[in-house]
C-alpha cells in the first residue's frame, strides 16, 4: 500500500485539483438545507480554497445519502394528454461523473461496506458506489458517544476509504487504499511517508483503537427466541415515540419504499427512505399490520441491527457512530440496549 506525507497546505491544493475534474464534497457543520441545489443533505460542494474543518466525532450527516439518495428516481414518465409517450416508463439518465467525498470518518466508511452487503445486486446503489470516492480522516479524538471499536471498527480504521488521512505531528499521512484512491493521487507530487510515521499509526491502531466486538459477538450465537421475548422491550417500546430520527441519521439503516409522484402530468417513480419505526412500513394492503404495535417496531430495529443482520451477513449493522445516541428525543441509547440484551443471556 502506498502511503504519502501531506501537509495541510497540500491537502488544500489536492482538493482544489480534484474539484477541477470531479465534484468534491465536504461536511457542513452548521445548519444546511437537506436538499440544496446539487448536494446530499449535510454536505456541501467545495471547489478548494476553503479549508476543510472537521469536528470531533462523526460528521453531522452520514455519507449514506451519496449512495442511497433520498429520493432516488427509478423511472420517469409523462401522463400529458395527447403526448406520444404518454404512460411510457423511462429510466432517467444519471450522471456517471466521479464524486469525491472528503472528511469521511472511519465509522461512516465502514457503513458503506455494511450496506453493500444487502445492496450487492442493487444497480442504483452499485452505480452510486462506482462513482463515489471516499476521502477519510481517522479520529485522534472521539466523543463519549462513540463506540465504533465495540462494533468491530476502529477510530483509526481505513476500511472502506479510498484515501485515509491520519494526523501526524506536522500534517498528515495518507494511505491509498483502492484503485479509486490511486486515481485521485495520480499526478500529485507527494513525498512518501516516513517509516516512523507509518509505524506510529500502526501502534495507535493496535492499542487505543483496536476493534473488539468479542463481547457483543456472543449475541450472534444466542437463541433469537429468548432475545425476542426479553422483558426489556416493553419499557423500551413504551418510551420510544416511533419517530424515524434514529433510522434517518443512521448510516446503516437502508430501508426504502417506492412511490409514484405525478405533478402536472409529469410522473416519476421514486425510492425514498422508509423507517421500520413507522406503522405504514409494515402495513399490508389488507389492513393487517404484523408490527402493529410500537414495541414490535422498536424491537425490530434493534434486533435487525444486532441479530437478524449479523445472522444473515456476518457483521452487526451498526458502526458505533453514536449519532442516534445523541439525537434520540427520548434518550434510547443503543449501548444500553446492547448491554441489556447481553444481560438476557
Amino acid at each position, binding site marked *: 500500500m502506498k502511503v504519502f506525507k501531506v501537509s495541510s497546505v497540500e491537502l488544500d491544493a489536492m482538493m482544489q485539483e480534484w474539484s477541477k475534474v470531479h465534484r468534491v464534497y465536504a461536511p457542513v457543520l452548521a445548519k444546511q438545507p437537506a436538499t440544496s441545489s446539487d448536494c446530499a443533505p449535510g454536505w456541501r460542494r467545495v471547489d478548494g480554497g476553503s479549508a476543510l474543518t472537521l469536528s470531533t466525532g462523526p460528521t453531522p450527516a452520514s455519507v449514506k445519502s451519496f449512495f442511497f439518495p433520498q429520493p432516488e428516481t427509478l423511472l420517469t414518465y409523462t*401522463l*400529458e*394528454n*395527447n403526448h406520444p409517450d404518454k404512460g411510457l416508463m423511462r429510466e432517467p439518465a444519471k450522471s456517471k461523473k466521479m464524486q469525491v467525498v472528503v472528511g469521511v470518518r472511519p465509522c461512516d466508511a465502514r457503513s458503506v461496506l455494511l450496506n453493500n452487503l444487502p445492496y450487492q445486486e442493487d444497480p442504483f446503489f452499485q452505480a452510486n458506489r462506482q462513482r463515489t470516492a471516499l476521502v477519510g480522516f481517522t479520529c485522534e479524538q472521539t466523543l463519549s458517544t462513540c463506540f465504533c471499536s465495540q462494533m468491530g471498527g476502529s477510530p483509526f480504521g481505513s476500511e472502506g476509504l479510498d484515501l485515509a488521512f491520519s494526523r501526524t505531528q506536522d500534517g498528515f499521512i495518507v494511505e491509498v487504499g483502492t484503485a479509486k484512491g490511486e486515481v485521485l493521487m495520480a499526478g500529485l507530487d507527494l513525498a512518501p511517508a516516513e517509516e516512523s510515521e507509518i509505524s506510529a499509526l500502526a501502534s495507535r491502531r493496535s492499542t487505543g483503537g483496536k476493534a473488539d466486538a468479542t463481547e457483543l459477538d456472543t449475541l450472534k450465537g444466542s437463541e433469537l427466541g429468548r432475545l425476542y421475548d426479553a422483558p426489556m422491550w416493553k419499557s423500551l417500546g413504551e418510551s420510544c415515540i416511533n419517530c424515524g430520527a434514529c433510522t434517518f441519521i443512521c448510516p446503516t439503516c437502508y430501508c426504502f419504499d417506492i412511490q409514484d409522484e405525478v405533478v*402536472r*402530468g409529469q410522473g416519476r417513480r421514486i425510492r425514498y427512505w422508509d423507517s421500520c419505526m413507522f406503522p405504514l412500513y409494515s402495513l399490508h394492503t389488507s389492513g393487517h399490520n404484523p408490527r402493529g404495535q410500537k414495541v414490535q417496531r422498536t424491537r425490530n430495529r434493534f434486533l435487525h441491527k444486532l441479530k437478524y443482520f449479523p445472522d444473515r451477513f456476518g457483521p452487526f449493522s451498526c458502526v458505533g457512530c453514536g449519532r442516534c445516541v445523541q439525537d434520540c428525543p427520548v434518550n434510547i441509547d443503543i449501548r444500553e440496549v446492547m448491554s441489556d440484551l447481553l444481560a438476557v443471556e
Partner: protein
Amino acid sequence: MIGGGIAGVQAALDLANSGFLVHLVEGTTSIGGKMSQLDKTFPTNDCSACILSPKLVECGRHFNINLLTLSDLIALEGEPGSFKAVVRQRPRYIDPEKCIACGLCAEKCPKKVSNVFNEGIGERKAAYLSYPQAVPLKYALDPDHCIGINKPGRCGVCAKVCPAGAINFDDTAKEHVLEVGSVVLALGFSPYDPSSLDFTGYGRLPNVVTAMEFERLLSPSGPCMGHMERPSDGREPKRIAWLQCVGSRDINRVGHPYCSSICCMFALKQAVIAKEHAHGEFEPSIFYMDMRTHGKGFENYYNRAKDNGVHFHRARVHSVIPAADPGNLQLRYVDEQGQVNFGEFDMVVLSTGLQVGKQTLAMAEMLGLELDADNFIKTDSFNPVATSRPGIYVCGAASEPKDIPQSVMEASAAAAEAGQIMAPARWSETSKKVYPAEMNIHAQAPRIGVFVCHCGINISSVVDVEAVAAHAKNLDGVVFSQCNLFTCSQDTINQMVSIIKEQGLNRVVVASCSPRTHEPLFQETLRDAGLNKFLFEMANIRDQDSWVHQLEPEKATAKAKDLVAMAVARVRGEGALPYNTVPVTKSALVIGGGVSGMTAALSMAEQNYPVTLIEQSECLGGNGRKVYRNWKGDKFLPFINELTARVTTHPQISVKLNTEISDVTGSVGKFITTFSDGHSFEHGVAVMAVGGQAYQPEGQWQFLHGINPHVQTLLELDQRFIDEDATLGEVKQAVFIHCVGSRIPERPYCSRVCCTHAIDSAVRLKELNPDMDVFMLYRDVRTYGQRERLYQEARAKGILFIRYDLDHLPQVSEKDGQLVIHAHDPIIDANVIIHPDMLVLATAVQPRQQTGVLSKFFKCAVDSQGFLLEAHMKLRPVDFATEGVFLAGLCHYPKPMEEAIAQAKAAAARASIILAYDAVPAESVTAVVTPAKCTGCGLCVAVCAYNAVSLDENGVSTVNTSMCKGCGACVAGCRSDAVTLKNIGNEQIMAAVDAAFM
C-alpha cells in the same frame, strides 16, 4: 292551485309531495310572484332569489305538478271532492318544448318595452324572460308589444335567429278542463299605487319611488345591477327617507283602515341593506307612526338598525317637494314636540301598503266567495284558510296583509285542508316513473362517454366544440365522445340512451350548461339507460365559459378542454350510490295538547294517519282555555271544547294526559319515544306544540302585581270575563300597561299578541261599562293587519292611549290601597297622574322551560330566547333542520290563535308528506367514515349541523346516513381523512384539480 307566488308554490309542492296531482295555474309567464322581485328578505337578510329558486325549480320539475303559466281560472263548478275547473291558457308564442333559453330572441328583438319585473324601471324586449332564474326557464313574446304578432310579417327577427325553431306567431289560447278535488287560492296582493297621493310627489318627482321599485334598484339582478342609483341622475343617494303607511292605516284619502303589517320591516330591511350597498356616508331615515316589528327576530333587527345609524322619526310627512338642489327632495313634517321640521333627502321611498288586486276581486266574485270589509277574502277565526265556499281555501296575502313566513305557513295549512278532503284519492291521480334495472359496474374499468354540446351557437360560436370533443377522446377512461347541437333536446337524450347501451358506457360526462339546471335531466337519462345516476358529471362550458369569454374564443376553448378533463377525472373516481330511503312508520306523535297540538293531531288524523297526542297536564286546551275571545269577538271556550271533543273521540287519535317524554331515539321515519310512564312509541314524525307561558311580572315590571288586588295580568282579567264577573262593570277607571316584560334587553322581542289582546280587553270593559275611563300605556301600538280596526274602535270608544318609553316607565304606587299611576305623556309633554281602580298588565309570552330539554331529545335547535328555532325563518317556518320534526304554536314565537291554528295545520301538512310514503328518500351523497383512520376526536360531531355524526361506543365516529345532508363539513374538518363524502371525496376533487394542470 291558483297563483304561483311563494304561497302557491309551497301549497303545490306540499300537495304534490303528499300524493296528489296539482294543476298550478299562474297568470304570468313564470312562477315566483312578488318574492322573486325582492333583493333580500328580513330578518335574516337572505338573498331572496337564492332561497326561492330551489323551490321554483322543484316545482317546475315536479312529476305531479302540471304548471300552467299564462293561465286563468275562468269557471268552477261542482262540490268539494269533485270540482270541474276551466282554465284558459293564453298563447306564449314560443314553444316551451323547443325553447332552450339561449336568449337570442330577446337579444335581437327590436321592440323595447318597459320592464314590468323591474317595476317599470328600465326596459326589456317584447321577446323576454321575466327574470334570469324564471321557472319555467322559457322565453315568451309579449302580445301587447310584439310587432310580429300585431303586424304579421312586419318583423319576425326572433323566428329567424331562434336556433331551436321555437317561435310560433300563430300560437293560440287553449282551454283546459280539469277535474279537481279542491281549489286553493294564493292570489297574493297588489301594491298600493300612490299616484293619487299628491303630497308624496310620486309620479311627478322621479326620486320618489315605491318600496318595490326601490327593491329592484337594490337587487343585483335589477336595473342598476345592485348599484344603488337614483332615477333622476344615476347618482348614489346618500340620504334616503322612507315614508311609512303610504296606503295603509289611512281612511281619509286611501280608504284602507288596515295596517299592511310588513312595511315596517320592509323599510327597516331596505334601510339596512341600502347602508350596506352605499359607499361611504349614508343616512337612512324612517318616518313612521308606530314601528311594528312584531315578528320573530324583528325587534332585534329594529334594535340593530337603531344602533347602526338608521334614523327614526315618529311623524307623518306632510309633503314632499323638490329641493333647491336638482333631484333632491324636501320633506316637511311635524315632530313629536309639535315643531315643524324640514329635511332634505336625495331620495324618498314610499312604504306602500298591500291591497287586494282587481283580479282577486273578480275571482272572488266568479267563485262566489265572501269578502271582508277590506275586500280581502273572508276566512274563519278558527279555520284561517277556509273561505266561505267549502272546498276552496285561501292562503297568503289575499286574505289579509301578511309576511312570507305566515303566507308559507298558510300555504301548507291550505294544503292540509285540501289534503283532508282528498285523502281517499291519495296517489290515485299521480304517476310514477319506472326505470330499467341498473347495470352493476363494480370492478369495471371506466368506460366514459363525453357529450359536448353546441347549445345551438351559444357554446359553439365561441368554443371550438369539435376540438374539445377530440381532446376528450384521448383522456384516460374515455371511450366515446361526440358533439351534439342540443344535448338536452329530446332526440339527443334518446340517442344518448342508446349510445350508453351500445358503447357499454359506465360513466358519462356532458359538457354543456350548468349542472344546477340540467344535471337532473341527464341523470334521469342515465337511469333510463340503466346506469346509476351518480356516475355522471357535467362540464359547465356555457354559463361559465362561452358566455363569459365571448371575445376570447381560443382561451375559452382551452378552458373548455380543461373543464372537460376535470369532469372526466372526477367521474373516473366515482361509483354508483344507493338511492337511499328511510322506511316510514306511519304514525305521528304530537307533543302538547293545546290548540296547536290538537289542531295538528286532528289534521293528520283526518288524513287517516294514527296520531298519539301527549299532554303534560291533566286536560287538553292549554293556554287557549285562559283567553276569553279574539279581536273579532269570537269566544275561545266553545271552540276549544268542541275541538277537545273531536280530538278525544277521533278513532285515529290516542290521547295521553299527564305524560311527558323521557327519551327519544331514531330519526325521520322511525323515532322511538319513551314516555314518563315507561311506555315507548314508534312514530315516523313528530310535531312539537309545547306552547308558551305568560311572563310573571317581577322587578320593575311587577307594578304591585300580587301585592295590590286591583293589579292583574291580561290572562287574569280574561278569567274574570270567562267567569262573567259582574263586578267588572263597576270599575270606574282602568289602566293597561303594554309591553310588560317584552321588548326589553332581557327579552328583546315583541310578544305580538298583547297590543291586540289588551285593546280588545279594554273594549270589552267599555262594553261592560261604557262610562269607564280606560287608559292604555303603550310603547308602539302593534295592531297589525286588520287588527288595526280594533285600535280604531277603541279610540272611537274613548279609550285613551298614552305612550311611554323605557326611559319613562309608568310609576305605580298605592296609597291606602288606592292605586296611583304616574305616567309621562310625550305629546303634551306633561306628567299624568291616574288613580284607577284596576290595573291590567299586558305581560310577555315566554317559551316554556321544558322546551330546551325537549328540543334536545329531537336534536332541534332553540333560539337565544328559548323559542324553538325553525329550519329557515322565511321559507321553512314549521320545519326543523332535523327532518321529520315540526313545530307549531307559541313554542315557536308568540302568536294569536288563528296563526297558531294555521301553523298547526301547516305542521300537519308537512308531517303528512312524510307519512304519505312507505319510505322517504334520503341523501345519497353522504359522509362515510373509515373507522381505522378515525381518532374519535369528535370534531366531525361538533361541526355537523344535522346531528348526523356521533361517536359510537368505541369512540369511533359514525354517520347516520338518513340524517346526513352531504355538506362535507366533517370531511374538511377531519385531520386524519377518516371521513369522506361519497363521490365528492378528496380523491375525486383533487383528481379534477390535477386534471386542470395536465
